[in-house]
Every structure is written in structure tokens, then in C-alpha cells.
């Protein structure tokens, strides 16, 4: 699942429309929109660091965000670059503390890159710098809250330049339009993340049939926890090595070496089983 966090509803509007997201009515403290089939959930955090951190933490907790998930923060930012340019943020500075955070840059994207500085108030003046620098009010907080649940390879920050330090001149309609103009680029990047998530899906070690067989084996050998762990590791190695471990176990049953009558016998059989599984 991709979790999107925007500060304002007008930043979310184009994304809601593009992915046909539906409002989650059970959630009333802040708006959440989702489309399970599309694998997208979007929360509107409200403006500013505290609101952004609270909502990010809350959503990540409520939906047990973790392995295979992504966090994306699309939104507008101030900067000297051409208005309407979408930047991929390669570092996030927190103005209040001077700390810098680095989301991983693993996946291909078509956007120019920039640093974003998260400030407590809208900036009135942006600096001329050699490399583009943007100013927002949420990214650093979303990163820090998200980092409690996700790794740096799971978080991306996309910022569209809305002004160069005149935030009052940017209307909600203009903001919505800036995002809408880039919705294909944004959705293209989200598609790439979803493909990447699919590729890295964790396969289970053991299928249900393996688990059933192992459970019976533990009982038939009167296994302690340590013995069960040892068998499990041997079977895992056999499976990964492409060996048919079931035939080894079946053979021991056919030879009437299993089931064992006692724990002592189970311990003796364990050594033989381990040897035969290698």
C-alpha cells in the first residue's frame, strides 16, 4: 500500500480524483481517502509540523504500516525555481533543529532533484543557491514520524514550486491546478513504487503443508523449543537448497524410526534427521 500525506485538501484533490479514492467515514479526526484495489490511501494532515507528525504517526499506527508499504508526501513548496516545476527531494532539512534527513534514492524518476527545508512559518523570501532549495512546512515532520515505521527506502517527497516567497498569493485553486498538471508524472512514479513493492514481496519460508508436517514431526519427536528450532532451520536449508526434505522424513517413518517413544529417543533421532537433511 502507498500512503500519501498532503497538508491541504487542495493538494489532494487531483490525486483523489485520479485514483477514485473514497472517504473513510469511520475516520473523523482528519480526512482519509482510500482505494484498496489501487493500493492507495491518502491522509490530509493539516498545515504545519505538529499536525503533519501527528497524522502521519496516527495513520502508520492505525494501518500497521511497514514492510512493502511506501510513504509519499506530495505538495507545494516555495523556491526560486520556475513555478510549477516538480522536484524530487533528495534531502530534507529541519530549519528549527538544523537536522538533515536523507530519503533513499533507489527508484528511477523523471524529476529534477532539490533539497527541501521545512520551516515553522511560510517563508517570505527564498534564497538564491547553486542547487535548487525549496521551503515547505511538513516534510521533515512527516519523515521523522514515518521513520518510526518505515525505512528511508520507503519514503519519497515530491514538491511542486508554487511561489518564491509570496504564499498569500497562491490560492487553493492554483494549488489544486499545480498538482493536477503533474498527476500523470506523480501516478507514474507511484506505479513504479508499486512494481518495486511487488518485486520485493517477502515469500513465506514454509507453506501450509510444510507447517503441518513440521508440527506433526515436533510432536512425534517430543521436541523442546530448541529441538524444534534446529529442525526448522535444517528444513529451511533443505528447502532453499532444492532438496525434497519430505522424502527424508517419510523414509524415517517407513523405517519406523519415527514416531519416537520418549524425549530421549527424540534427541537421538534428531541427530540422525539433521545428518540426513544436509
Amino acid at each position, binding site marked *: 500500500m502507498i500512503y500519501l500525506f498532503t497538508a491541504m485538501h487542495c493538494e489532494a484533490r487531483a490525486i483523489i480524483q485520479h485514483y477514485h479514492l473514497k472517504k473513510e467515514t469511520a475516520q473523523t479526526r482528519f480526512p482519509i481517502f482510500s482505494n484498496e484495489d489501487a493500493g492507495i490511501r491518502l491522509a490530509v494532515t493539516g498545515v504545519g509540523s505538529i499536525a503533519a507528525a501527528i497524522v502521519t504517526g496516527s495513520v502508520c499506527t492505525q494501518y500497521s504500516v511497514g514492510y512493502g508499504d511506501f510513504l509519499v508526501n506530495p505538495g507545494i513548496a516555495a523556491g526560486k525555481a520556475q513555478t510549477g516545476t516538480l522536484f524530487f527531494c533528495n534531502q530534507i532539512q529541519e530549519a528549527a533543529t538544523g537536522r538533515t534527513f536523507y530519503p533513499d534514492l533507489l527508484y528511477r524518476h523523471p524529476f529534477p532533484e532539490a533539497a527541501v527545508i521545512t520551516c515553522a512559518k511560510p517563508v517570505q523570501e527564498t534564497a538564491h543557491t547553486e542547487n535548487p532549495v525549496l521551503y515547505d512546512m511538513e516534510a521533515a515532520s512527516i519523515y521523522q514520524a514515518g521513520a518510526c515505521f518505515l*525505512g528511508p527506502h520507503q519514503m519519497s517527497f515530491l514538491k511542486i514550486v508554487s511561489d518564491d516567497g509570496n504564499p498569500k498569493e497562491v490560492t487553493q485553486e492554483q494549488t489544486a491546478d499545480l498538482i493536477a498538471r503533474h498527476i500523470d508524472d506523480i501516478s507514474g512514479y507511484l506505479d513504479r513504487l508499486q512494481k518495486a513493492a511487488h518485486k520485493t514481496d517477502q515469500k513465506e519460508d514454509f507453506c501450509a503443508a510444510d507447517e503441518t508436517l513440521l508440527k506433526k514431526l515436533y510432536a512425534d519427536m517430543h521436541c523442546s523449543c530448541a529441538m524444534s528450532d534446529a529442525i526448522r532451520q535444517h528444513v529451511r*536449508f533443505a528447502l532453499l*537448497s532444492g532438496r525434497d526434505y519430505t522424502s527424508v522424513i517419510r523414509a524415517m517413518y517407513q523405517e519406523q524410526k519415527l514416531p519416537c517413544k520418549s524425549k530421549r529417543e527424540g534427541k537421538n533421532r534428531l541427530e540422525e534427521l539433521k545428518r540426513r537433511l544436509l
Partner: protein
Amino acid sequence: MKNSNEDCFNPAFSHIYVERAVKNHPRAKRILSAFQNAQIIEIGHYKDVFCRSRQSYALQHKAQKLILAQKQGNLLYKGAPVCQSFGNRHFYYASCMMNCIYDCEYCYLKGMYPSGNLVVFVNLEDIFSEARRLLAKHPLYLCVSYDADLPALEAVAGYVREWIAFAEKQEALKIEIRTKSATLPRLTAQRFASRVIFAFTLSPQTVIDACEHGTPSLARRIACAADALRQGYCVRLCFDPMLYCADWKKRYTDMLKQVFSRIPAEKLLDISVGTFRVSQDYLKKMRKNQPHSAVIQFPFQNVKGVYQYPEALSLQMEQFLVTKLKEWLPEEKIFLWREDYA
């Protein structure tokens, strides 16, 4: 140079993080000049990137980034007990890079480092100073390619040449450059060749195919080792780690035949043999990062905090290889890690 073909991922070294303190260092400038299209990101300290929490070593290795930094604190380390000293009393290693462009499933670096990105310390001169300080006290046997594969990154960093040039001037210094690569710099002077040891780690081709992703083939490594001997370098062959598989005897026998059909055994400095072993803390992380790697999911035994094959198997594998090797080399040229560790 590795370049990910998986279309989701950025190519290797698409981004280079550079500590502000070293951005004007000549080595940093030289390295950066090789990556004209890379995005450069200035950072305060390499640990701000390298030591973040919850990183995915495996994913980062698919789109590896380069970090140029300054080495501080300890510049040379005493050799670890699980490493071989080859009879050298003053055994140290240098860590002028962290991590490797190769992707070997069993590599201890995957358990040691929190990140799959590659750090190059550009202040090599400080490491040389520390080596000189130790050399003033005693001779030094220094392994310079332990926490990385220096020759594999030679085209970018040029550190092998720099270490050889340094060794040339230090008579009491002997360096070992361990590698799985298949390239080495031309030797410019013969008189100090005995103090530069190129140590080639060799594995059966089936092991290379299964576990040593991105590395040169066995045939290429053998050809490179043969070339090193022709140039006059000291050459060590490392059958370490030996890895268990169902038909390990056949695989290692075939490998030895291939090796000694191309390499004159009598010219080798020595050979090291050791079955796989790794500290318990590292293996735990390695297994978490690579849950589907057979080579590290072997049911190892924990002996004093070091995971290794069951003793009987370990001895059988090592003795088998040593017995075979004795057909080509005298026993005193064959070093077993176990002898050092005992």
C-alpha cells in the same frame, strides 16, 4: 562497474554523497570527475547517510550510492581472530573503503554494516601516516582490502596503485590486497614485488553463479592471478570461505584442476583454506536481510560466538581440500584459518 538492469532502480552511483569537509580534497575531485552525470549531494558526516535506521541493505545494493568521506578515529585495526595472519606477528588491516560493489550472499559486510552503500575515505594520507607510525615501532603486515574489494573499484578510486606506491617506500611493510576482481595494475618496479601480495579469492563456478553476484567468473580470476604471477607479484590463492553444498567434493576437485591447469603452483606464495564462519551478530542480520539465501541459512553451530559448519563437516571439508592441494604444493605453503584461531 555494476549497473542495475532492473528498470525500477537507479543505476549504480547515480548519486554521490560528499562530506563538505572533503569536497575539495584532490581524491574526492578525481573520483567525482569520473561521474559527470551523477547527482552530488553534500552532507555533514557520512554516518548521517550510512547509519540511518531501518535501511535495506539488499535494496540499496541494487542502486548503490557512493559516499566520499574522511576517515577519523582508528585508522588501522588489529587483525581479527577469524582472519588469518599467515605467520605475521604484527597483523593489521586498513579500512579505506566500506562495502563492496560485488554482492556475495555470504559476505560478512552484510552483517557488519547498516547500509548497502559504498563509503570511500579520501584521506588516504592519514592512513599512510598511521602506518608509518606503526612501522617506526615494528614491521607491519597490513591487509588493505578487507572491508571492501579495492581492485574492483580501481578504475574509480585508484587506491591499489596508491598502496603499492606507498609500500614501495616502506621496507618493513608487507601489504595484502584481497580481491575477487579480474584486473590489476601493471607493476612498475620489481624490487619490492615481494611485499605486495595479491590474494585472489576463488570459488567453484557453481558457487560463483549461485552466491557471488556481479563477480568475475572463476576462469577470469584464474587468468588474472596467472597474469599477476607473470608480472612478478606475490600471489596468494584463498579458498576461503569454502562453502558446503551436496556435491562439494566434486565442485572443489573440479575447481582445483581448473586452477592448476593455468597457474604454476610452485610460483604461488601460499594458499589459505577456511570453511565459512561468521560472528553470531553478523549472521543474525545477514539472515534477516536475505531470508532466501541457502548459503547463509545453513544450520550452523555457534562456537564461542562464531557460527560455523558442524566441526566434523568443517574438518572434513578443510582436510579434503588440503589433501588435494598437497598434490601441487608443499604443506608449509597451505594455511588453515583454524590454526590461527586456536
